[in-house]
């Protein structure tokens, strides 16, 4: 803030006594709004800096203007000076838009109302703002992009500005001379301040001359005025080291200064001035001097081309201009000197427009062939770049009479006009072009455009502009796509679009063409047109091709999502593709969502050996998504809340399904569900059973069986379908802890207690099954329950328990008659219960299933013969006689001696 303004206000405030409310009302009469007075308040300076950083100093300007209306005397001048600073800043930062004119007017008003605020800087800023706007209009005039009256007005303004800037430059020069004298006399104590003032003065003088020179060159170019070219040279001389008011001399140009934009631009303006003065050799010399400089600002090479085009045209050198344009469009050489990608280069849109405009406006005396070549090449480049607006605009400015009716460019321009008509009609009903037109008339316009553009593609000479041809193919496809009648069959755009995607060198346009081809096929598939399966296969192949050619394209993730989620698509590949979508893509969230869905499917389908890994991969994906949805849900977004609930449920399932359940992850997800319920965002009722079941899983994992039993009872009450799952869960947990106890001490009391729990829960489960909970007998539960019962019978001699075990095992063996462990257990328990026939049968079945001569076989043989000896000794002896014939030593230890002993007991000779 202006320090003088601040000090004035501060002194005013320091002497101000607190005012009663009555006084306040009196004071308010003087202002339109009380309290909007000029006193600065705390933090104002910080806000000013903030506004400047945002580029909205306009707010500050408006506020100061308002303060100015309320201020008087010295305070008014201080505010005006501060306002002038703000205006100068605003005017130097704004472009050539309407706001610039607005601030220019306001600054002019300030200069009139408070002339003492009119610093040289403000005058220069005002002139610069006017110059920027007028120059922009003049340049649009050069390109024939502005109405002639606007261009004319701009040239008049620039002409006037030359004088204004000349005055500013003179004032600045006088100031510089004065300061230089003071510097020479050494009268100033503060040399630093003097140097800064000198530097500012020189800078102001240079800017004024630079702007005046450029204003003059625009006037010279518009009017082909050698006189203005001379004026421009004299002003630009100040920048280029010339003597005051002399033309710049190329010999005095310091090459190293060309690294500064204003010097390089001034040198190029000098070249143009010489061309307008009809001194083409001098123009070429200045152009070459700039081109030869080792270090140039980034935008200067482009400007060199512009100025060379303008210089050659201004001096009537049309054939040389055609040569120059040919050079610009020649195929680029690669590093080895080869022809690069082989295609011609295109002029930039602005250069193409400039060349086209200059060629179409060339005087009659210009070489017809050179002008025709320039025009066609420039227009073809505009078509190739998709700059159709320029082509149409040029055609409307110059008319189409100059184009041959059967040439490629002539037909192309007509096609584009038809296309533009169709677009206009289309936008009347659908400004976003989101769907093909709904009315037949607009569709017909598109069909006409497609036909004309097709003709252009087949016209003689079309091959000379392959890039323009590719763009035309794309447009044909677009027109055919929009010409299609939903009910009737029209021309199929697919092939043209595919061809365009193959030949377009611009990857963005090539990708667009391919996307539209996919879109076209989607439409045909949707309509059920032709062989849908074949079309779908073609479409999928195009999508795969798209993803291969344009993997980093912004739309690739959308296609990835579509392809990865398609039925039958390899899910693992789909997951990999989805995970490749970068975080910067707008499709990232969608891709992660689909990836998590697929990862969950893969987890559920994973074989046991891969289940943990698949669960971890899924959890890694899903947890951040859950957090994001939870955040959204907290803004009372019910859709997010539902999604978060689904995610939480999947996470709980996967985390508790791990070999070692991840209870922490599950509890975090449960907390999310709880919080959503507490916030009233989801209905708790449908979840009550499931959540109780999950909590029971966690309780069982922690060994809290009492809590688990209570929770499972609650789960079953809330959702009866969970009753059996709950019993199974309890049973599995009981078995797990029983086995742990058994491994530590098979006969301990705690092992027996655990066995009782297994037996009780197992029995209840099987009873419920038998009562209709399940149609099939659960052999695993039966066998495990029987094992626990056998243990209890063995340890405690509980016969009832033994009988129940035998009955269960019999049931198990009915479904799996050769189950060895169960056969062995059944044989043993029935023997203990005195059921020798049952035991004998079991040993016999077991024996038949074992490999003769192996350890288990000999063991089974011992038990079999032992019981047979009790039931039928004669048969036992016969069996052992046959045995000893095959195994004269009876068998290995310990079974061989046992068999020998039984045999001897039965009367065999030792």
């Amino acid at each position, binding site marked *: 803030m202006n320090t003088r303004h601040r000090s004035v206000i501060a002194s005013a405030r320091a002497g101000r006594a607190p005012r009663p409310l009555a006084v*306040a009302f009196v004071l*308010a009469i003087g202002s*339109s*709004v*009380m*309290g909007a007075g000029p006193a600065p*308040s*705390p*933090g104002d300076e910080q*806000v000013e*800096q903030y*506004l400047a950083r*945002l*580029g*909205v100093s*306009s*707010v500050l300007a*408006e*506020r100061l*203007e*308002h303060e100015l209306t309320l201020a008087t005397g010295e305070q008014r001048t201080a505010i005006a000076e501060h306002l002038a600073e703000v205006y100068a800043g605003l005017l130097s930062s*704004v472009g050539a838009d309407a*706001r610039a004119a607005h601030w220019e007017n306001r600054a002019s008003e300030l200069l009139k109302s408070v002339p003492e605020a009119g610093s040289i800087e403000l005058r220069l800023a005002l002139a610069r703002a006017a110059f920027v706007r007028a120059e922009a209009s003049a340049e649009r005039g050069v390109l024939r992009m502005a109405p002639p009256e606007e261009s004319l007005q701009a040239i008049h303004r620039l002409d006037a500005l030359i004088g204004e800037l000349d005055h500013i430059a003179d004032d600045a020069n006088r100031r510089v001379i004065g300061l230089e004298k003071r510097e020479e006399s050494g009268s100033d104590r503060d040399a630093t301040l003097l140097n800064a003032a000198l530097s500012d003065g020189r800078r102001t003088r240079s800017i004024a001359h630079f702007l005046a020179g450029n204003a003059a060159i625009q006037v010279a170019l518009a009017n082909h005025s050698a006189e203005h070219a001379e004026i421009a040279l004299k002003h630009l001389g100040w920048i280029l080291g010339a003597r005051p008011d002399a033309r710049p001399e190329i010999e005095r140009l310091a090459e190293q200064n060309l690294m500064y934009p204003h010097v390089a631009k001034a040198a190029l303006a000098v070249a143009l001035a010489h061309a307008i003065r009809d001194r083409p050799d001098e123009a070429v010399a200045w152009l070459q001097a700039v081109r030869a400089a080792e270090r140039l600002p980034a935008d200067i090479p482009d400007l060199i081309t512009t100025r060379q085009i303008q210089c050659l045209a201004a001096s009537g050198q049309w054939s040389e201009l055609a040569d120059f344009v040919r050079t610009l469009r020649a195929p680029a050489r690669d590093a080895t000197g080869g022809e690069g990608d082989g295609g011609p280069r295109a002029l930039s*849109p602005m250069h193409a427009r400039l060349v086209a405009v200059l060629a179409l406006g060339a005087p009659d005396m210009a070489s017809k062939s050179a002008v025709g070549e320039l025009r066609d090449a420039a227009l073809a480049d505009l078509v190739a770049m*998709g*700059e*159709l*607006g*320029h*082509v*149409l605009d040029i055609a409307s400015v110059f008319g189409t009479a100059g184009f041959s009716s059967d040439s490629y460019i002539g037909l192309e321009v007509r096609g584009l006009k038809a296309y*533009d008509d169709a*677009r206009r009609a289309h936008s009347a009903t659908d400004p*976003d*072009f989101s769907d093909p037109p709904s009315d037949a008339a607009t569709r017909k316009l598109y069909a006409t455009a497609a036909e004309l553009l097709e003709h252009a593609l087949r016209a003689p000479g079309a091959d000379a502009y392959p890039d323009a041809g590719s763009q035309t193919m794309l447009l044909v496809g*677009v027109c055919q796509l929009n010409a299609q009648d939903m009910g009737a069959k029209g021309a199929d755009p697919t092939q043209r679009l595919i061809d365009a995607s193959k030949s377009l060198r611009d990857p963005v346009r090539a990708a*667009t063409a391919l*996307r*539209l081809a*996919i879109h076209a096929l989607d439409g045909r598939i949707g309509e059920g047109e032709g062989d849908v399966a074949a079309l779908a296969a073609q479409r999928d192949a195009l999508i795969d091709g798209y993803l291969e050619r344009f993997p980093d394209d912004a739309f690739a993730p*959308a*296609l990835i*999502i*579509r392809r990865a989620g398609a039925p039958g698509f390899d899910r693992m590949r789909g997951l990999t593709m989805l995970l490749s979508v970068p975080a910067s893509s707008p*499709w990232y*969230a*969608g891709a992660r*969502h*689909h990836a998590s869905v697929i990862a969950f499917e893969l987890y559920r389908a994973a074989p046991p050996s891969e289940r943990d890994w698949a669960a971890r991969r899924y959890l890694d994906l899903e947890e951040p998504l859950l957090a*994001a*949805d*939870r955040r*959204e849900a*907290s*803004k009372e977004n019910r859709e*997010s809340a539902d999604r978060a609930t689904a995610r939480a449920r999947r996470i709980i399932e996967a985390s508790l399904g791990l070999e070692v359940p991840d209870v922490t992850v599950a509890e975090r997800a449960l*907390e999310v569900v709880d*919080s959503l319920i*507490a*916030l009233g965002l989801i209905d708790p009722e449908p979840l009550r059973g499931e959540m109780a079941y999950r909590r029971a899983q966690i309780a069982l994992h922690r060994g809290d069986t009492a809590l688990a039993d209570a929770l499972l009872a609650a789960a079953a009450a809330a959702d009866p379908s969970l009753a059996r799952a709950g019993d199974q869960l309890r049973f599995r947990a009981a078995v797990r802890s029983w086995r742990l106890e058994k491994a530590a001490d098979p006969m301990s009391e705690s092992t027996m207690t655990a066995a009782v729990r297994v037996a009780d829960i197992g029995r209840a489960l099987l009873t419920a099954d038998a009562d209709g909970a399940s149609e099939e007998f659960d052999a695993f539960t039966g066998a495990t329950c029987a094992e626990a019962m056998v243990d209890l019978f063995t340890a405690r001699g509980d016969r009832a328990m033994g009988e129940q075990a035998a009955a269960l095992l019999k049931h198990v063996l009915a479904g799996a008659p050769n189950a060895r462990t169960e056969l062995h257990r059944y044989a043993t328990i029935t023997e203990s219960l005195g059921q020798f026939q049952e035991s004998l049968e079991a040993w016999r079945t077991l024996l038949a299933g074992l490999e003769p001569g192996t350890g288990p076989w000999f063991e089974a043989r011992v038990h079999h013969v032992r019981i047979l000896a009790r039931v039928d000794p004669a048969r036992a002896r016969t069996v052992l006689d046959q045995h000893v014939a095959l195994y004269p030593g009876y068998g290995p230890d310990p079974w061989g001696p046992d068999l020998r002993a039984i045999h001897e007991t039965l009367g065999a000779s030792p």
Partner: protein
Amino acid sequence: MIGLVVAIGAVVAGPVELRIGDVVSAPVEEVSVVGVRVGGAESRIIAWDAVRRVTGDGASKAAQFQSLSDDAWRARLRLSRGDHALAAPVFERLYETYRTVAGPTALMVAEGTLSCRLAAGRTSEAIEPWLHAVALREAGDTIAGDPPLIPMLDATTMLVPTLPPIWLGPDGVGAFVTSGDVPSTGLAGALGSLYQDAARQEQGRAAALTAATTEHPGVALVRVIVESRAPDPSRRESARYAMLGRLEADAGSWREAWLRAAIGRSFLLESDPQVRMVGVFHLMHLPARFSTTQPELAAMALALASRELAEQGDLGGSDAVRTELERMFPSSAPVAWLEAAIGPRVQPRAGSGVDPVSRQDLETKDNAP
């Protein structure tokens, strides 16, 4: 509101073990939902969140409140470590019990609920627990014990610095304006009435301004803010004058932020565009100086400034302020408000001409977020 004290009272004896490990050996005079009242030299009510257990004769009575005590302790612990997400469900549950109860537990629950609702952006719903807390503090209740909680209420004004009587449009007001759960007496009654007036103004309705005139600094501040949006221009002028006069004294504090927002919004009601721009300048103090302490007001100020600049034809300035809003406060409510007010941001079109190809992209919709 606080008249219905649910008490299961009985005079019992026995030491009280606190969560921090200390034991209070004073006689237990009463055990109720309010807390544990102990007598002796330091007679007081101990809040349930501080009580681990009561032993002796009072043990069985206290056992009835064990789960409530655990919840209060858990909620306080979570809040003290800044875990609003996990504290919120517990506080909401507790608040159902304590919204009509007095005492230190009720105060902790009211302020905890207030804190959680503010953290979740449920501004209008935060008013009720705040007013409940005001009434309790007015009655002499305090929050004692550990872990310490960040004070929610400014001691002088009894206002919550992040709960100004300022909203961005009627959507932000919520159901508060029609809610009957506002105290009718005392300081809480005066503040509640003024907040309802402010909410009515936001809905385009006239403020009743029935709150008793009082010298209390909190009431005075809210009253002048409400007055600054009065339909009568002269009343607005007077209110602005009063607020401008306070700026220096309140410089840098949350009160200045409130005043800037109120002054800016008041100026925006005027017809002179230049005067409205003075309002924009005041509003811009918020993002420039208070964006970290008053993020909601700062976002609101940016949205209002952007709209005003757009309405005055400074589309470049409007866009710059909007960009700042979206950068500093992405996904905030003012971003959506601004989009509704001045329309969606115009995206640059590909190319310069009529080529529409890029606009006819595949409509591959994704149902994912």
